[in-house]
């Protein structure tokens, strides 16, 4: 259940209990102060939850946040894109959205593919730091394995899925697949361990084939 719904239920039930224990003359005075205090103390949570509930997807195709919730405008985001319905576990029915505190709040069922975007971050300067934080926020659902090379790291699998699990790869290397990294809609010129970020960077990990 949404934290906002839980809070409102608690507020209504506790107000009824408190209201019944008060005499008629003081009921409105005491209850009004109680409700206001509860709303003030919870205002941050209420605003955040409400923003998630009412958020819409950015439809400006020139914006590199295109297709992402508008509450993430100006924030950093990591997207894990899987072809078709090949995303791990519960993420195979579209593109899910997970806020930086781990809250799942919006599913784009019309997305051409599956997976999830984890966003709402700020202050990260290098791609790998943001990626690690996104993995933590997803509860480890998109944990990755990698190989360390002298030029940086190469991601081997995400969420237990290797590129060749979901894309054609031949033994003679005439065809194959790898985890590619896009930064703000462009192929990243360096590996994720060296990728410099902007305040509103969107990193997209997607399976690329040749």
């Amino acid at each position, binding site marked *: 259940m949404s934290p906002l719904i839980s809070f409102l239920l608690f507020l209504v039930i506790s107000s009824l209990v408190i209201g019944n224990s008060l005499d008629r003359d003081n009921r409105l005075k005491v209850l009004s102060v109680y409700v206001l205090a509860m709303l003030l103390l919870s205002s941050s949570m*209420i605003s955040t939850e409400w923003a998630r509930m*009412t958020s819409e997807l950015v439809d400006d195709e020139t914006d590199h946040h295109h297709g992402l919730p508008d509450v993430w405008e100006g924030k950093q985001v990591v997207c894990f894109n899987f072809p078709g319905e090949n995303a791990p576990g519960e993420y195979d029915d579209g593109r899910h959205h997970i806020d930086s505190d781990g809250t799942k709040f919006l599913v784009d069922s019309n997305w051409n593919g599956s997976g999830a975007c984890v966003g709402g971050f700020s202050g990260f300067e290098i791609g790998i730091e943001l990626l690690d934080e996104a993995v933590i926020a997803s509860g480890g659902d998109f944990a990755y394995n990698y190989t360390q090379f002298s030029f940086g790291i190469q991601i081997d699998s995400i969420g237990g899925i290797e590129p060749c699990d979901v894309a054609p790869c031949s033994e003679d290397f005439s065809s194959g697949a790898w985890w590619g990294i896009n930064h703000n809609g462009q192929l990243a010129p360096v590996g994720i361990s060296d990728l410099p970020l902007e305040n509103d960077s969107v990193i997209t990990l997607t399976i690329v084939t040749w």
Partner: protein
Amino acid sequence: MFDAHAVTLSPFETLILNVSLLMVIGWSMWRAERTLSPGSDLLILALMGVFAVSGRVLLDPLPNIQPVTVIVLLAGIHFGSSRAVLLATSVALLSNVFLGHGIWTLYQAAGWSLVGISGSLLSDKMHVSGIISPSRVAALSVVAAFCFDWVVSLSALHSFGAELLPAYILSGIPFDMLHASGNVVFAAWLSTPLSEMMSRHSRSRTVVMRTVTTPT
């Protein structure tokens, strides 16, 4: 050299200070009203204006919580539309001298004026057996909070198109709720004492005149 003002208050300490100041202003207003002769409606409106402006400025750290809406509503109930509009517009302008004046002042004045006019129109419904009903005032103040906020939201049309207005209003619902619940607190605690003060000076009171016959 000593810097006697080099005291930094936390947000909570500032709030306590501001609420204390507002209580002092309220108490002083109550004492001052006692010295006024009955029927001093413009003077009591001025006192209400001072309290409303002070309340709005001092409670500014609390999001969207201020006593103006309830005071203007009560002014409409007791003094009628024209005086409520005068109070609403003056409070919007004077408080924005401290909080920031701009195009939104016009919309705030319009919003609070509508609140005052609705109080005037529904004046009879706000009384039970001739006495102001705090619960009815509270209910009307909840509606007034949302209406006022939506009127003020119209000022955003100067910045973006009408197609974004519904989303803008929708995103402000939590702040509207805070305004509404703040209004209920003010209505619960202030509607009876403020109504007593206002009704002592309201010129719209019914005066029953009878012919006095002297015994011959």
